[in-house]
Structure formats: structure tokens, C-alpha cells
């Protein structure tokens, strides 16, 4: 019985060691990241987040009067996100405009960021965040969240923390950090499981989704990996903000 369990554990571990990522990264290694604030001069705050071949640009307008008027809330300010894939950011041209996917992601991003936002003191007002994906290579909602958090901070919207987001994955039986498109389409064995997670700097999760199949034990491990990755992202975000404020807008 014990032996059998041990053997099963070993079996589980074997592919982890031999698994090779297509771009040669280590399992817990993220793609190269670059971040910059102040990329949109006319916005109140803006940021660019590039992670591998995924690029997101976010701009903040507001707080301003909520329009349409019937959505105004006299008890609090509101965050409104608008996520958009540019038509040429994907291989097969995406039709411009909103679809079901982008409408869901709008809400996901709002839920991910709202916990760190302190906009209760802006009754009837809205903070608009627009996110454009110029290049999509998986993890676009995470890049969008990272850019949006930066843009909000750059706009001087009151926040108690930043949020950092990363897409983790399970490829066959191996857990990896920051899946790219090729990995997202992985079909061998158990296939690919996509797990985007967003965390505050003190490790609270504000967003999490799963598409695929995974055990609770593996999920615990995933959350540990996410915490480590989000800490790294948090440092990049802090640096981008400091650089942006030091150098001013271009």
C-alpha cells in the first residue's frame, strides 16, 4: 500500500523533471517583462505591459461623471473596465468590437482590481479603464490587469495596494508559470489547463479562473507558484511607477 503510493508519487514527479518547455524556459520562469507608465499623453494615467509576445496598453480616464446617468451610484464611485483585443493581435483576425468573451473579461478585471481601490469617496463618479491588447500570445487578461493596476496608480486614483496577475498552467502533468500561446494549445496527455490568478502584494487572491482539469493538491502548489510569480511582477510594477514618475511623461 505504502509502496504503491510512493510509486504513484514518483510517477507523478518523473514528467515534471523531464518536461521541456518549447521556448526553453524553466518551469517557474516567466517570459521577459517590460513595463512603462505614461504611454498615452491624453489619459489621466496609462501604462504598457509587455510579457513575452503579449502586449497590453491601459489608459485611465476619470474619475468623471458616470454616464449613462441611471448607472450612477450615490453611495460610491465605480470602476468600469473595457478590455479589447485588437483585430490584428491574433492569428485569425478578430472582428472589431465587443463579444461575449471580452464582456466577461471586463467584469473579471473589475473584480480583480476593485478590492484594492479606494473610490468610495467619489459618489456618482466612474473611473474608466480601457485596455487594448496589441499583441496576443496568451495571458492577455493578466497583462491587462497588470497594465490597468499600473495605469490606475499612475493616474493617482486612491489605492491601498497594487494587484499583480499571472497565468499559470498544467501541461499534461507538469505545472508551469506564464503559459504562452503554444503551451496553451498543448494537447498531449492531459492537455493544457489554464489558470489565471491575480494577487495583492500581501498574497490575497482577487481573481482566479480555471479551464481544464487539476487536483486540489496540484492547485495548492499552483497557488504557491502564483505567489512567487506575483511577487516578481509586483517588483516590476513598482519599478515602472518609480521610473515613470522620475522621468515624467515622455
Amino acid at each position, binding site marked *: 500500500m505504502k509502496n504503491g503510493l510512493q510509486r504513484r508519487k514518483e510517477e507523478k514527479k518523473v514528467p515534471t523533471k523531464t518536461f521541456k518547455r518549447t521556448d526553453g524556459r524553466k518551469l517557474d520562469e516567466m517570459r521577459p517583462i517590460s513595463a512603462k507608465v505614461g504611454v498615452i499623453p491624453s489619459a489621466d494615467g496609462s501604462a504598457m505591459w509587455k510579457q513575452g509576445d503579449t502586449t497590453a496598453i491601459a489608459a485611465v480616464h476619470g*474619475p468623471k461623471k458616470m454616464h449613462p446617468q441611471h448607472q450612477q451610484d450615490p453611495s460610491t464611485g465605480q470602476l468600469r473596465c473595457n478590455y479589447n483585443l485588437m483585430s490584428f493581435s491574433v492569428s485569425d483576425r478578430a472582428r472589431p468590437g465587443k463579444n461575449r468573451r471580452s464582456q466577461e473579461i471586463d467584469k473579471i478585471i473589475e473584480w480583480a482590481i476593485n478590492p484594492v481601490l479606494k473610490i468610495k469617496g467619489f459618489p456618482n463618479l466612474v473611473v474608466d479603464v*480601457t485596455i487594448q491588447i496589441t499583441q496576443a500570445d496568451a495571458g492577455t487578461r493578466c497583462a491587462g490587469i497588470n497594465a490597468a493596476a499600473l495605469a490606475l496608480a499612475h493616474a493617482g486614483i486612491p489605492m491601498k495596494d497594487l494587484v499583480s496577475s499571472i497565468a499559470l498552467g498544467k501541461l499534461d502533468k507538469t505545472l508551469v508559470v506564464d503559459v504562452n500561446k503554444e503551451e496553451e494549445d498543448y494537447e498531449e496527455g492531459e492537455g493544457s489547463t489554464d489558470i489565471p490568478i491575480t494577487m495583492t502584494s500581501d498574497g490575497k487572491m482577487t481573481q482566479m479562473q480555471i479551464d481544464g482539469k487539476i487536483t486540489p493538491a496540484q492547485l495548492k502548489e499552483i497557488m504557491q507558484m502564483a505567489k512567487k510569480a506575483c511577487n516578481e511582477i509586483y517588483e516590476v510594477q513598482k519599478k515602472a511607477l518609480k521610473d515613470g514618475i522620475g522621468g515624467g511623461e515622455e
Partner: protein
Amino acid sequence: MALEEARSKMDKFQTTSNVTGKRIRQYLEKNKRFDGRKLDEFRNIEVEVGVSKKAEGSARVRIGKTEVIVGVKLGLGTPYSDSPNKGNLMTTVELTPLSSPRFEAGPPKFRAIEIGRVIDRGIRESKVINFEGLCIKEGEKVWTIFVDIYSMNDDGNLMDAAGIGAVVALKNAKMPKYDEKTGTIVYGELTDKKLPLKKDIPISITAHKIGNSIIVDPTQEEEDLSETRVTIGFSDGIISSMQKGESTSITPEEMGEVFEIIEKSWKDVFKKIEKFVK
């Protein structure tokens, strides 16, 4: 951020104030502009190509603080019955809320539709695209070129930025790989072949009339005061498309002035983008 500060920002940017407008007009009477440019002078133009790896061709164009990103994608389509051996061109413009507090999310409004149509005609009517070269099987299958233009920052003259972006992205685009057996596109693999384009560089240039002055490349403040505008699709001395926009009339003499200014501007712009469109 204090609530008062937030409130004071609410109506900012919606339009240029009367006071500023009056001063701009006074300046123009003396052939001067706020930023020191001549009336027929463009702001600095910056071009960057290959800004999106997933696109078959892409470009970022900045004119002063105005910025657009243009991507070219190729898709498969069926030809129109009146042109069975010709490919298709589709140009869309999205004025994203990211680029200006004036733009709202939602279906394209008239301004976006108009820019798209004017830029589309500027390219189509210049005959720079050899549409026969986009035919795969006559009457059945042709390539469709999608030119998608996104505004990233609006500080006036998005129209010309869009036109420059479109031509640069087209000139830099490569054909995707086509699998003859399955009749589909092999995505992610581009051939070395460029799009079937002729040598012309059609650029749409817009002149605006404010008071008695004709200017090009307005900033947002100037654009707000524009009484009428004329966009001309121009390629090395030949006019191939035109659109007069807004309600104010224009005299033939003024129109003559517009032609001169546009011819000069085309040369200026061409010089700045020449190395990106070879």
C-alpha cells in the same frame, strides 16, 4: 485626490473653450500658431513598423502627440460577382476610449466610420493595390485585405495619421502561407512575398479652414475650430480621392490654395516616411 479636483476634471477636454478659440483665430490672422508652426507645416512624424507580431503588417504612427496603430491582416473570402477575379479591401477605424475622454465604448460612431471610408477610398482609388493579384480561384476564392486602424491618442488630425499608418502597414505586410490542399491559411507562417502593390505612395492629407486661413495637421484645439475640411488622397501629383467635410462653404480660390498646401504637405510627409515604404 480630492473630490473637488475630480469634479473639476469632469468636463475637461469636451471641447475647446471660446477664449482659447478666439486667441487661436487671432493668431491665425497673423499666420501664427500656438506651437510656432507655419500654417502648412506638419508636426514631427514618427513611424515604427512591425508593432504587432500577429499581424501580416503593422505600423505605429505618431504625429506630434496623436498616435494610431494600424494592422493589416489577410483573410480568405469570396469575390463580388461583378469582379470575380479581384480581391477585397476592408478598412475599419476604431476610435478607442483609451485615446481620448471624448470617445466612448460601443459600436463605431459616424466619425470613425467616415475616417475608415475616406482612408479606404484614398487607398482603393489610387490603384496602389493590384486587386487581380489577390485572386486565388476566379469566382470562388480571393484574398481579403483587412486594414484595421486604432486610435491610441487623439491630439488632432487622426485622419492623416490613419492614412499614413495604413499605407505604411500595407507596404510592410507579407503574404501569409496558403495551403493549396486544404484551401486554408497556415497561420503563424508568413512568406517572403509582399502584397501585390504598385510603387505609388498614396497619402491622404487634410486641410482645414479656420476663418480665412487654411491649415494642415491641426492640434485638437485647432481641429475643434475647423469650419470645413478637405481630405485629398494624393500620390505624386495625382489626386485620386477627395472628401469635403462639415457645413461651411469654400470658394474655388480657397480650394486652389488647399491644392497647393496639400501638394507641399504630401512632399513633406513623403520625405518623413520614405524609408518605411520602399
